[in-house]
């Protein structure tokens, strides 16, 4: 079953073309890694799929398998994409002063449930779920009572992203450099979290990363090299090792 089908996607930021004909098909049950040099368009890919304002699609199509079948992803607003089952893990998670994680995530989870016609989670139900996912990422529940990402270290922010993913239970996660800023232990914890939450036949993951190290923990089924705004090479997990060994220039 096809989870995501990107065809000839072109996008610009501030009138500068970044994506220049990106095509990628991701099936349910698969984990894909997108690697590539700085400026290749990796983060832009995530933002365009998430619908970030300022990232203008100038061509191509994206079909996403939502809860009610395939939808034109690009026609949805960002919050509608989330409700359809898309999760975007941020490279730089944003701080929201004064709004606690618990409040933010409960509102978010219930907003998504409302769109899907599910009843809202009660305070108790939500806390139980949050506790379970926080434990999975070895995060103290007290941290989730603090304002969203405020005062969190880089590693804590990334773990909090994974806790959010666990709570929101998406169909497809696009994780933008989840491994950046993580120490060795946090890298393993995040990797295990991704496997526990997303390694399922009805889910899929796109990992955007510079390095092979996260892929030691989250084994990709496919690895793609993104350069100059398109995918120039695809292969299995061994391609990541080859890239690590020989560099982008040699492989691409």
């Amino acid at each position, binding site marked *: 079953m096809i989870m995501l089908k990107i065809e000839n996607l072109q996008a610009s930021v501030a009138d500068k073309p970044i994506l220049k004909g990106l095509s990628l098909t991701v099936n349910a049950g698969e984990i894909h890694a997108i690697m590539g040099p700085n400026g290749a368009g990796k983060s832009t890919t995530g933002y365009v799929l*998430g*619908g*970030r*304002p300022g990232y203008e699609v100038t061509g191509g199509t994206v079909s996403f398998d939502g809860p009610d079948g395939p939808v034109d992803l690009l026609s949805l*607003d*960002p*919050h509608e*994409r*989330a*409700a359809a089952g898309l*999760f*975007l893990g*941020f490279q730089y*998670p*944003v*701080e*929201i*002063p*004064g*709004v606690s994680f618990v*409040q*933010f*995530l409960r*509102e*978010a*989870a219930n*907003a*998504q449930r409302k*769109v899907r016609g599910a009843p809202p989670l009660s305070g108790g139900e939500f806390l139980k779920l949050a506790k379970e996912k926080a434990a999975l990422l070895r995060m103290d529940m007290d941290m989730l009572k603090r*304002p969203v990402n405020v005062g969190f270290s880089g590693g804590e922010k990334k773990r909090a992203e994974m806790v*959010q993913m666990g709570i*929101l239970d998406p169909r497809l996660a696009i994780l933008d450099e989840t491994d950046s800023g993580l120490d060795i232990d946090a890298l393993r914890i995040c990797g295990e979290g991704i496997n526990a939450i997303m390694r399922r036949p009805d889910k899929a993951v796109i990992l955007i990363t510079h390095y092979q190290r996260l892929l030691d923990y989250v084994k990709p089924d496919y690895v793609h090299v993104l350069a100059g705004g398109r995918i120039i090479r695809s292969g299995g997990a061994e391609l990541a090792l080859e890239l690590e060994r020989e560099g982008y220039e040699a492989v691409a």
Partner: protein
Amino acid sequence: MSVAAALLPTRRLEDYRYADLAALERIWPVAVEEIVVAPGEGGRLVLVPEGENVARHLAISLGAGASFDLRILNAGHAYGRVAIDVTIGEGASFTLGAAQVGGGEQMLELVTNVTHAGPDAQSRQVVRSVLSGHATGTYLGKVMVTRGADGTDGEQSVRAMLLDRTATANARPELEIYADDVKCAHGCAVGELDTQGLFYMASRGLPPEVAKRLMLQAFLAEAFVGAEAEEALNEAALAALEPLL
């Protein structure tokens, strides 16, 4: 009421520089409401003015070692003005937390004159405004530290959030210091909602109006931190926000 007090002020008076004089004329004269807190005593007041056009004027006097906690929600008026004169005695402490919420053509203003008349006293003012449409929110705040009021600790934190470029925020925190060893801080900022934060929240499934509400609620709540009626004030502020979203 003396004749002088009954005369309508003009814009030449700094405290009325941004006032809606036509609206003010309809409710003039404004009686001064006096509050005296005896030495060592504590007091508090929650002020939520009501009315289409409304002006209130409080004169608060704090004796030595006294404290007063004043919270204001100035919202929903065509014209809403709150003027506060405070005289603070030795070692006394004054807290003001005020939120102004306006849309349409509304004009809201808060004018404070805080006088540190004795040494080692504290004043802390937190003012948060959310303005949309063609609304105007004004804060004129003067902190005067008189001769001999050494050890004064005065703080003004003033922030306004404009939801539309057509809204206006006037903010003028002011210090006049005639004493030594004084700690006075003032911060003032006018901004817009953080678009990165809004996208982050949307990416988690929050519709824009819910995301905005959460952010603005948190912003206004800064004025009510530590208030006894914190929860009720936050709810009232949220109700005032709704028509702006």
